[in-house]
């Protein structure tokens, strides 16, 4: 399955199993989503359970909160993560706070899906990775799958979860494991082990990272697209890097991170988002706090720059294999 098919399949199984699951968003109903992640659902489950929404992201999330408070399980799509800002108040001030402020009387079991990341010539409003804007908000869980098998299992876990989950889908991975070599064609998921996805219902638990590549020389903390870019860099540079795919940013699997960095003594953190106050900053702080006496070199961050995501120069913005190799060298020298 492609990641799109895996996500669609997860929706299908969840809707089939639990009548409370409702799916809506812009172009999500009849058409099945601009990335086709919900194709076929309206036909199968009716327009009472999968429907189009007016172009109002705050309204989509706000209505979803009301539905969740009623007892349904809305799974909503924000067409691009770049368009989540109009919904930010509803997400932060409401979805994330409901359980706490009502002492558990009202809860918000809702999944907010959104495609993230660049490298598709989308310019500054179709390329953003706003995960840090969610990780700073208590009450939210934040998930970033890196492959179809995880995407399906994590999405089903997110739908089961009793709290609001932000589900960020790296759109550059929808069709294959993109490694940053944009001048080469992407190998489709069907040729990749992690594209071999069972049709059955299964979950991948939130809060558990996955070591994608074992190694002793240094630890790479990455998620989404950057997992593959890191792999390519490690292989091309011939470096014995241990690559951790975080999968869930909140709650974070700090144990796996700590164990690895204590072993390697060196750490490179990679994300596509803008650097300053990106999630890499939190990771760096945590690694430093937990592994200080094991660190043999400064932790290095490889990230998008502190600029808007440009259209024509997107490969200069994108943290590609070359930049990561330089970071490896730097952290090994240190």
């Amino acid at each position, binding site marked *: 399955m492609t990641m799109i098919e895996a996500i669609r399949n997860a929706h299908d199984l969840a809707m089939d199993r639990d009548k409370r699951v*409702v799916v809506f968003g812009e172009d999500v109903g009849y058409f099945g989503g601009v990335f086709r992640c919900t194709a076929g659902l309206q036909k199968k489950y009716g327009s009472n359970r999968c429907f189009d929404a007016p172009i109002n992201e*705050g*309204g989509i999330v706000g209505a979803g909160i*009301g539905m969740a*408070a*009623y007892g349904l399980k809305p799974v909503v799509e924000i067409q691009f993560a770049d368009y989540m800002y109009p919904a930010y*108040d*509803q997400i932060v001030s409401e979805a994330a706070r409901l*359980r706490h402020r009502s002492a558990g009387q009202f809860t918000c079991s809702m999944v907010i899906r959104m495609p993230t990341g660049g490298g598709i010539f989308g310019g500054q409003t179709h390329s953003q990775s706003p995960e840090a804007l969610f990780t700073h908000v208590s009450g939210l869980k934040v998930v970033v799958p890196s492959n179809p098998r995880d995407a399906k299992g994590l999405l089903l876990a997110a739908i089961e979860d009793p709290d609001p989950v932000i589900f960020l889908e790296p759109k550059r991975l929808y069709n294959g494991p993109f490694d940053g070599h944009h001048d080469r064609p992407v190998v489709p998921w069907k040729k990749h082990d992690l594209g071999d996805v069972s049709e059955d219902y299964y979950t991948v638990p939130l809060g558990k990272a996955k070591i994608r590549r074992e190694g002793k020389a240094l630890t790479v903390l990455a998620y989404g697209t950057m997992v593959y870019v890191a792999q390519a860099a490690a292989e091309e540079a011939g470096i014995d890097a241990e690559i951790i795919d975080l999968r869930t940013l909140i709650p974070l699997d700090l144990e796996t991170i700590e164990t690895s960095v204590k072993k390697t003594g060196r750490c490179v953190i990679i994300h596509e988002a803008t650097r300053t106050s990106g999630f890499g900053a939190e990771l760096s702080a945590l690694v430093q706090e937990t592994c200080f006496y094991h660190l043999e070199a400064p932790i290095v961050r490889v990230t998008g720059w502190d600029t808007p995501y440009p259209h024509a120069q997107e490969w200069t913005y994108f943290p590609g294999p070359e930049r990561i190799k330089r970071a490896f060298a730097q952290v090994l020298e240190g």
Partner: protein
Amino acid sequence: MTAPRPLSLHVPEPGCRPGDTPDFSDFEIPRAGAVRRPEVSEAPEDMRDMAFSVVRVLNKAGEAVGPWAGLLDADALRTGLRHMLTLRQFDERMLKAQRQGKTSFYMQHLGEEAVSCAFRMALEDGDMNFPTYRQAGLLIAGGYPMTEMMNQIYSNAADPLHGRQMPVMYSARDHGFFTISGNLGTQFIQAVGWAMASAISNDTKIAAAWIGDGSTSENDFHAAMVFASTYKAPVILNIVNNQWAISTFQGMARGGAVTFAARGHGFGIPAIRVDGNDYLAVHAVASWAAERARSGLGPTLIEHVTYRAGGHSTSDDPSAYRSKDEFSAWPLGEPIARLKAHLITIGEWSEERHTQAMAEINDEVRACQKKAEANGTLITGPHPSPRSMFDDVYAEMPPHLQRQRQEAGF
């Protein structure tokens, strides 16, 4: 074409600021009974007139007149009077408690008691309100224990919200009362979503959304209107126009519109203006809207025309921005006095019974306060344990919060 003249900015100002003489002569008020009662199934386009008048039932003589009268018997009216009196006494005691330092903050309903008290009686159990901080009448009229409200206000050991929320930010799911948000407007669209969920689930319950005149400016108001209009959600959209939003008068939010109710027209949502100080009118209009919602006819917008007689909150001194005499000049009067007069007019009440009722309510509110204070106040404690602050952030406490709770010493 002649050279255009320079433009200038229009900044709306209320007719009356401190020192001015209040003048409500431009507020057109129809006689009680004068406004028609459309069939609930009438096409929205055919009842646009309802947004430009004011439904009123109680006339100056204290009689209930016109097509909106006749829904409530004397028992129901006496209950309504009792609810409003209770809310007023509750407010008085809590205002005093705040001044005594027993809590940090309070918001009263003075002059607006009819709105929430009468509205509640038009709902069924199981329906859900998405209130603002100024609809405690929904709780009182719905039988929610006053002691619980006070426990919340005092952030004491028995506070159902564990001291987490500011005073009056109640939550009472079993009483159809959604957790109040400190952020204005957010709950308006949530109410629509709740109503959509009821429809999706083929349920029969309806939702009621609440917003203040000033807060209609917030963008979530639009989201609610769009979604309610598009999905014909079974929701009653209430605007409480109490003339003021802290220091700004309703004209700052209303702008060039004739009424707030008119906002419904751009969405094909029937809109009715009602005399918010007339218990019978509020109840009748709410019942009409509830019937529409329950019959699958979709949303109704109600503008409750009332007046915020007190300060915005205990942090506010309205004499800085409006005339002290405004409330006495307010043409729709005072809701408790009006209902009382009506009951007396129809021979179902008397000054003696009123005095006696006041005394009973006084005893009741006092007793509740005593019980609540036995659980503590903000100044004396006991408070909920700070440990509980880490609960309910998530259903299950994730490792980082466990670590933080430990770091905090709990």
